[in-house]
């Protein structure tokens, strides 16, 4: 090869590449997010009477949801079919993805040019609040009035789907979604294994914890638990933390008041580490998958499993009558139970849908008493149980779940998932709790780290608030955000 010629070509190639690079930069040189649906708020709440989808003409409603598990998938399928039968002019185009897939693709889909009409949104800052801030969701307060959602649902549950109109605070303000299903973290138990250790299903928290030592003495695993996927410990820790008090923790999660470096947090972390040290949890729990742990419990390895109602259908299939399920036992027998939980993902209407009224009618249809009965038939816990729920035998595991849900709601004992608290709390908690379990992170350090995350976010929130009021005063009379 001729060295010179080669080098000459190379240099020219480099020039071409540079020019191309510059052109590319120029071509893309727009600020993303400014050409989208910038207007916040939306007008989808204009309706005053109950909308009639039959009069809407031919409509295709695109719906993105994540209900792909057995029970919920069947229930949504059936309700979709019924809705289309009731309104033959409406066609529902359903796109069902798993939770993580939905989370990853939804943002692109919703901010794109042809967004779906109805989507399932995860509550909290990274998803629902971010969507509202970008003006991608339509407020539903009007429909909540028209369809009586306000009276159909307990306020605690509706609040979890609220975001302040400026897209700033979570748990308060306008309603941006409505959930179909209820969820709570409870105590699954294997009746056979409890009987073998001479134990009954615990009625108090102390009875439960004392029983753990007994089961361990009998050389069996007290609590099955797999934390390789990082998030399960958030639920376990949450339940431990809740036992001291529901209200203050809820206030802290919703950013109303409180801290995370308090005794409550430290004690809960210490208990979790202690359970692992004493062998109440599997030894290699940080290396065991969440689903694997559930399978092991189903096959008789572990007397208890502390996880959410979403596992019930699968566990029941594998264990049959051996399976029992209760909310975490209260401090005193017959006392008010407290647990981590809330509701399934919210069904929301996008702000740029062409058929907001049909979408609202669909949301209402998904959450009526009839829908609740369909859910019960499919073994799913409805947020507001209907008539069919009353017929479920109380001593069956489904009956126990419905009963627990009712007691938790009556006692106002539901505490939202801790990772709602800040946009990064999921990461902070899941990473740190793996350390707490492994013994590399002390309860005090855990609490300090959690508070550092929480405190930093609260400070930026307050700073934003100050900026906003300052700006509003400066603008005087001018309406903000182009509204």
């Amino acid at each position, binding site marked *: 090869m001729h060295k010179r010629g080669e080098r000459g070509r190379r240099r020219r190639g480099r020039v071409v590449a540079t020019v191309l*690079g510059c052109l590319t930069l120029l*071509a893309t040189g727009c600020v993303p997010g400014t050409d989208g649906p910038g207007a916040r708020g939306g007008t989808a709440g204009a309706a005053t009477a109950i909308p009639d989808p039959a009069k809407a003409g031919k409509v295709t409603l695109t719906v993105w949801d994540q209900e792909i598990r057995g029970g919920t998938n069947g229930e949504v399928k059936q309700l979709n079919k019924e809705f289309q039968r009731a309104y033959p002019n409406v066609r529902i185009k359903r796109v069902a993805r798993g939770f993580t897939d939905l989370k990853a693709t939804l943002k692109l889909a919703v901010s794109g040019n042809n967004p779906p009409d109805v989507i399932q949104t995860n509550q909290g800052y990274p998803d629902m609040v971010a*969507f509202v801030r970008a*003006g991608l969701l339509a407020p539903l307060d009007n429909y909540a009035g028209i369809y009586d959602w306000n009276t159909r649902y307990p306020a605690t549950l509706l609040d979890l789907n609220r975001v302040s109109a400026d897209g700033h605070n979570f748990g308060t303000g306008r309603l941006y979604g409505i959930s179909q299903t209820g969820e709570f973290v409870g105590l699954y138990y294997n009746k056979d294994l409890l009987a073998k250790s001479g134990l009954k299903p615990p009625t108090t928290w102390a009875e439960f914890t004392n029983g753990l030592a007994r089961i361990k003495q009998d050389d069996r695993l007290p609590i099955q638990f797999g934390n390789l996927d990082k998030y399960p410990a958030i639920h376990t820790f949450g339940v431990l933390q809740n036992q001291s008090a529901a209200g203050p923790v809820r206030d802290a999660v919703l950013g109303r008041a409180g801290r995370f470096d308090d005794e409550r947090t430290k004690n809960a972390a210490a208990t979790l580490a202690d359970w692992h040290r004493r062998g109440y949890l599997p030894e*290699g729990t940080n290396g065991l998958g969440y689903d694997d742990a559930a399978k092991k419990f189903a096959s008789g390895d572990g007397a208890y499993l502390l996880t959410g109602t979403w596992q019930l259908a699968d566990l029941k299939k594998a264990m049959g009558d051996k399976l029992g399920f209760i909310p975490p036992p209260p401090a005193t027998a017959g006392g008010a139970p407290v647990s981590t939980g809330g509701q399934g993902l919210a069904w929301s209407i996008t702000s740029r849908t062409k058929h907001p009224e049909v979408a609202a009618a669909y949301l209402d249809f998904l959450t009526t008493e009839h829908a609740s009965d369909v859910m019960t038939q499919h073994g799913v816990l409805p947020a507001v149980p209907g008539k069919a729920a009353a017929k479920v035998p109380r001593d069956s595991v489904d009956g126990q779940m419905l009963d627990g849900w009712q007691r938790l709601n009556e006692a106002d004992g539901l505490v939202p998932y801790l990772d709602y608290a800040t946009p990064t709390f999921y990461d902070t908690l899941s990473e740190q709790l793996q350390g707490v379990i492994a013994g590399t992170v002390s309860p005090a350090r855990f609490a300090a780290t959690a508070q550092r995350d929480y405190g930093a976010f609260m400070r930026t929130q307050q700073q934003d608030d100050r900026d906003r009021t300052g700006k509003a005063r400066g603008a005087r009379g001018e309406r903000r955000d182009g509204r």
Partner: protein
Amino acid sequence: MKGDARRPASNPQRPADGQARAVVGPGKTAPTSGELAPRAMRQMARTAHHTGRRPATQRLLNRYRRRAPGEPRAIGYLYILPALALYGALLLFPFGQSVWLSLLHWDGMSAATWAGSDNYRDLFTDPDLRAPFAHALLLLVFYSALPVVIGLLLAALLSRAPVRGMTFFRTVLFLPQVLALVVVGVAWRAILAPDGLLNDTLRAVGLDAAARPWLGDYDWALPAVGVVGTWVGTGLCMVLFLAGAQRIPRELYEAARLDGAGPVREFFAVTLPGLRSQIAVALTLTIVAGLRNFDLIYITTSGGPGNSTSVPAYEVYHRAFETNEVGSAAAIGVALTVLIFVLTVTLSRLVEGRRT
């Protein structure tokens, strides 16, 4: 212009001609096309004449008829235009976009704000961002160095003497390359589980103390994920080296043996230098694959325990899709690209002995 350049290729009588011209790069004169091309031109001119081509086209053709093939040199760019357009649209444009995004604070939805070099500064100051890069570089030992060394040893052994069932061994060792990494991840997650195959085996031979939850152990999770990479990469390296070893002239080995070289000396004096370019290829491929590694981490540990197995590619996904830090994600992506580029260029210079 564009139409003219394509015409030789569409000439039904000489399809091979058009191909021969198309592969000739900018300003490069391929000897074979030297005699073919003018003929094609003449033919083309004839066809043009019959169909009553406009004089302007005729003038252009006349101009080209007088020139040597491949002239003017700029015409080469016309040939690469289709590929360049694709490359630009699918690679350069998105990359430019990433660079642009990395200069912004953007949550992926609402209006972005200018960040300048903030996102890049964080790469150096934020320990949560430095760690993934450190992990990735450490993992290169497992993803690149070990597969090449083991591949070399295997190739040296297998190529010295004819082995029975050679195809079988080769296939078995190459198999991990064929599997989707997701499948590999799921399989190894089961093997490394607390009561998975590995721990069961350790306990069976009395090494109970060595058994541990590999993927959940703060000290062992990173090497455990690394070993999976070694398992995947070794087959590829070995097959590359076996192919390369077959091209080393037998005479060299004979000469070495006549000079009294043992197997070890032979390996270092003949095999290793003979495989130089294959080693460079293997290192490049495995380093790129190792630094881009996302699927394995995502499936096996999600970066845990804590963030002890977090790698840049995983962090890009995590920030872009889960925590709405698109700007930061883009900055990590760009930094990763630069790192891969620098490493591979340095490598090909060093190992292949290429100089500017």
